[in-house]
């Protein structure tokens, strides 16, 4: 993979972490760790095109964003999920309400409904000891509709092939400098690998 050489951050904006909560929006999540809320918003001009990256504080430090000249957007995107497992991954933080795993452990209370996604794994462990079962069987709200089954149509390709395809697509996207698409594919690969 080649490294773009003419990268120079043009603009950097810092939003303090105690920004009041608004409705959870996926763009507010850190593009690197996918866990922490993004607090550093970066825009670069790369070969005449605007590229946007949202980072959390820890990842921005880890990636050297504090030293703008040493920072490369493409490198950051490529390096993901391979070797660089930064410290931040260990302390989960809910992207919607900023509650951290350690606060949850201490208080036993969650910060918002999204926390149940963020801390799903640790909560699932608790549920077995806490309740009679792990599947709700009671009433549902009047307005609620069950989420449509993910892919009802033909069965998906065997996972190995699909992962292979995605990796190839990522390579192509990166070569073509389609960074938004690359980021999206990277997320999909992550999901595929963890499922």
């Amino acid at each position, binding site marked *: 993979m080649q490294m773009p050489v003419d990268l120079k951050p043009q603009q950097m904006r810092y939003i303090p972490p105690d920004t009041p909560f608004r409705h959870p929006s996926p763009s507010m999540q850190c593009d690197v760790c996918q866990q922490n809320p993004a607090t550093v918003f970066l825009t670069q001009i790369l070969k005449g095109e605007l590229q946007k990256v949202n980072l959390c504080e820890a990842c921005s430090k880890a990636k050297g964003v504090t030293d703008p000249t040493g920072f490369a957007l493409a490198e950051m995107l490529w390096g993901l999920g391979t070797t660089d497992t930064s410290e931040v991954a260990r302390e989960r933080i809910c992207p919607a309400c900023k509650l951290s795993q350690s606060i949850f452990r201490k208080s036993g209370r969650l910060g918002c*409904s999204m926390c149940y996604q963020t801390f799903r794994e640790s909560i699932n462990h608790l549920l077995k000891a806490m309740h009679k079962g792990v599947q709700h069987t009671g009433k549902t709200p009047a307005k*609620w509709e069950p989420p449509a089954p993910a892919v009802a149509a033909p069965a998906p390709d065997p996972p190995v092939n699909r992962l292979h395809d995605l990796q190839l697509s990522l390579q192509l996207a990166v070569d073509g400098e389609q960074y938004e698409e690359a980021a999206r594919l990277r997320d999909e690969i992550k999901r595929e690998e963890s499922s």
Partner: protein
Amino acid sequence: MKFNALLRRTPEWMQTSGPHRDIVITSRIRLARNLEGELFPGWAKKEGRFEVLAKLLPHLNSLPEFQDAFIEDMGDLDQIKKQVLVEKHLISREQAAKSAGSAAIINPEQSISIMVNEEDHLRIQSIRSGLDLTQAFAVLDRLDTELSTRVTYAFDAQLGFLTACPTNLGTGMRASAMLHLPALVLSDSMNQVISAVQKIGLAVRGLYGEGTEALANLFQISNQHTLGENELDIIARLEKVIEQIINHERNARAKLLQDDPNRINDHLGRAYAILRHAHILESKEAFNHLSMLRMGSDTGLLPVELGKLLDTVLVEIQPAHLQIASQKKLTAPERDVMRAQMLREKLQQLPEPRLL
């Protein structure tokens, strides 16, 4: 409805007689609900709580159950008034500790109450006389379904209603009954009952919930699990267990009356004499004597009508009720004097217990 009007009005559960009223004082159901996309009250900032309250109030106000309801923000109630609502089981101790942005809505009959921004955005409660959990749930179910057409609840297909604490996930429902079990206590069987009940996943608590003493031989029995079982199954299982406990209590009463009449005569005689003639009474002592009079009334040794009076008195001799009645702040010793005076007056007409 103003606070004083609420105070003057006798709650519906005190006027009616549900099933097994001699042993089960009340049945209560509460549902925990939260709004999608809003932080839970304990983690939200003040503005967030106000926003949720403002969003919910118009919907709650327009429910037919809450025509002429009592609606108050915790920030607008003084400590004594809040405590009165706790003593009436209309709000929780946790809510009483909260300030502005947390509100209570109570219907005039005091059979349905809603706490906004306690631990969850909504805690909806209904209370009924006797063992009547099914009906208490039916009332809330209707109201809850209606609300769910107006606001969007935080809900998950696997986890059910999403609550601030994972212990309330699923149905978000806590069903509980307040039982008066003097004979099981007197015959030293209560610990056995408690451990048996706990083994099957139910909880036993004192008069005011978690960690409180079992004053007046009153015990609250409730479900511990909220996920993995539907509302009606939870209620059916709980009612079955409670019915067994009722039988145990009835048997224990019969056995005591038959085997140990002197002991019963002594307990009743002391309770009668002290409540009618004491001038200083701590609440614990008063509670336990009132419990004996109630058992006397349930077993025909005192007039049956006494039962309802005792339910009222049990609430009225509590600290905040005494302070409201005397319209001033009282020290603990002053309350003990006032409590004794109130009991002497209320029980003035009480005939002596029939001897066994």
